[in-house]
């Protein structure tokens, strides 16, 4: 990157990948590094202090999502929560069946967990999505068999922002004995999530996605739902997740949850306005561009922070690199930028052709995004696209009428 651009000047539009930890969260964590450092399992005064902090945090995080404290299990992040929720549930309930249904819009961690299950004697069915990335409850139900014991549907797509009909699916599965797991990482802090009104059995949460510290997450396990641990050890978290709890990080996640409860409504209104302005300007000012996923004008269908475009004739990594040079941080689902040279499975499952999936560019906004950042993006994006289109054998500007 040219040396005159420091990262503090960068327009950061990749909140989906990582969020800054809120300064108020950092403040809440500090005492637990050098002052309240006991192990919650210890029987002395410092241990009791840690226990009190741990359980207070658990209560607040549970309350933020309509759950009971005993239903929250802390993990090292949402990926681990996905492992514990899905593999843990399948292994514990194997005698009832060996089939799990997931969707084609799931996060890569769930897709790879599914592959692991298939290699270990379980069966997996992947339910297709529509052109907006939404899974239909009807199509899901058509894939349920007598051997099905678990369904996993992400609350929303972290890639194209499509919100799934989790409430409808949860109600459809009620009384069937089939558990419902949901990866809520993309949706948390952006849409209301309430376990007391949505009958989900298992839910994966990430701390950083609500501006808490990285390296921490939680699995919600509804009372009555049985899972087996995937990590063995000293038996912490009711035997479901061994390892001494990171009280500092957990205290941070609790502070983040408190802030989320207080500020989510106003915050999402603000973020949505910024996102909508970018979408409006891009669609109006740059030719041959489309928005992937559900229309931004329908709040119930698309997350408020997500703007995912495809530009005809240009490739994603090239766009991200060019934007990097201009001080804008964005992301792409292009094959060239992935570890496997395969394009985003979600975009292909939406029905896009490969060359369309390669031309994708994703902007995601968050708590610290400002409206003028849209102007800064639009000051450079048209030029970036024009330059790459001039280089491209696939793009011919439409001849003037």
């Amino acid at each position, binding site marked *: 990157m040219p040396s005159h651009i420091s990262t503090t000047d960068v327009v950061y539009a990749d909140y989906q990948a990582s969020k800054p930890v809120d300064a108020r969260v950092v403040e809440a964590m500090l005492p637990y590094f050098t002052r309240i450092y006991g192990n919650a399992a210890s029987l002395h005064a410092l241990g009791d202090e840690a226990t009190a902090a741990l359980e207070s945090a658990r209560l607040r995080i549970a309350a933020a999502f309509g759950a009971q404290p005993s239903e929250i299990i802390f993990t090292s992040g949402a990926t681990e929560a996905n492992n514990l929720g899905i593999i843990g549930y399948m292994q514990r309930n194997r005698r009832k069946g060996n089939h799990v249904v997931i969707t084609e819009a799931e996060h890569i961690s769930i897709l790879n967990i599914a592959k692991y299950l298939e290699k270990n004697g379980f069966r997996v069915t992947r339910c297709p999505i529509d052109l907006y990335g939404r899974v239909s409850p009807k199509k899901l139900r058509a894939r349920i068999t007598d051997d099905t014991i678990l369904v996993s549907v992400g609350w929303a797509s972290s890639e194209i922002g499509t919100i799934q009909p989790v409430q409808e699916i949860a109600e459809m599965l009620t009384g069937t004995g089939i558990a419902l797991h949901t990866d809520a990482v993309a949706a948390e802090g952006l849409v209301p999530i309430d376990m007391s009104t949505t009958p989900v059995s298992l839910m994966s949460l990430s701390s950083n996605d609500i501006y808490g510290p990285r390296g921490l997450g939680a699995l919600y396990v509804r009372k009555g739902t049985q899972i087996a641990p995937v990590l063995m050890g000293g038996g912490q978290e009711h035997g479901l997740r061994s390892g001494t709890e990171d009280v500092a990080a957990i205290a941070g996640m609790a502070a983040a949850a408190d802030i989320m409860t207080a500020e989510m409504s106003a915050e999402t209104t603000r973020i949505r306005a910024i996102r909508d302005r970018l979408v409006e300007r891009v669609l109006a000012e740059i030719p041959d561009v489309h928005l992937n996923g559900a229309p931004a004008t329908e709040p119930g269908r698309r997350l408020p922070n997500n703007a995912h475009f495809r530009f005809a004739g240009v490739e994603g990594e*090239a766009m*991200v690199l060019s934007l990097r040079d201009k001080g804008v941080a964005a992301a792409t689902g292009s094959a060239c930028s992935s570890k496997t040279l395969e394009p985003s499975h979600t975009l292909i499952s939406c*029905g896009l*052709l490969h060359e369309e999936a390669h031309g994708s560019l994703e902007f995601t906004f968050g708590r610290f995004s400002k409206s003028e950042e849209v102007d800064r993006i639009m000051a450079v994006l048209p030029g970036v696209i024009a330059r790459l289109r001039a280089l491209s054998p696939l793009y011919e500007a439409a001849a003037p009428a």
Partner: protein
Amino acid sequence: MKSTQYTEKTLDHFRNPRNVGTLEGPNVAVGRVGNPVCGDMMDIYIRVTDEDRIEDIKFQTFGCGSAVATSSMITELVKGMTLDEALHVTRADVADALEGLPPIKMHCSNLAADALHEAVKNWREHVSPEDASKKRVDKSCHARPAAVVEVEISNLDEYKGKGVYTRLDDLSEVADQRVVVLDTGDRSAQLAIDLTEHTGRVVLMTTSKEPSVSSAVRSALRLSDVKLLSEAQPLELEGEGELERIRVHDLNEDEDYELTADALVVLEDES
């Protein structure tokens, strides 16, 4: 190593590519390689003198940072060389000139060398740029001539009424669906254009390089939102009780893949 851990030299060629453009006129040949499926496409144009020397060279590339950088670098390396000298430039030469490429990107340098070789080959075989545009060579296979390919979908009848249409009177029936229309002539192409009023996703599938339509319809197609999928042969339909996917044979790549679709229109009696 991250896929974008590029050297400064590579970034320089990405930011300031040399010899971008096309060439026209006498003594020009073009080499076209790649395929949008794998994400890279390169065109290299050469103008050759009577003494078999590359007098001018231009490129156009669809692809990532290293795709642009390797094609830019190879044009810089071979400009002024004789054709035989140019044919000796390898992908290792290109990668070295860029002071290294991430391992996962080495295939890009291969593609640049292939595009150049293809241009030289087309020059020596007197293939004009117009004719070359009708055959794009992919690294992984040999291009097949676009002969008339019979379309025979093995289980078409199974999905009639469940996503397969032989006629479509009420276009709103497929609103918001991913519709594939098989190219059976002007009527099918016109239907595809009309369908764009009802759904954001209309694909016109043809086994040839271009749909078999009149020039008026061809122009209308180009201006419409219809996505053209050429050199694609539908083989089989898939789906749980209704159409969900079409198994397609890519005639250019000689590979099969699955195309997500909710509706397939195969019009009967194209007059």
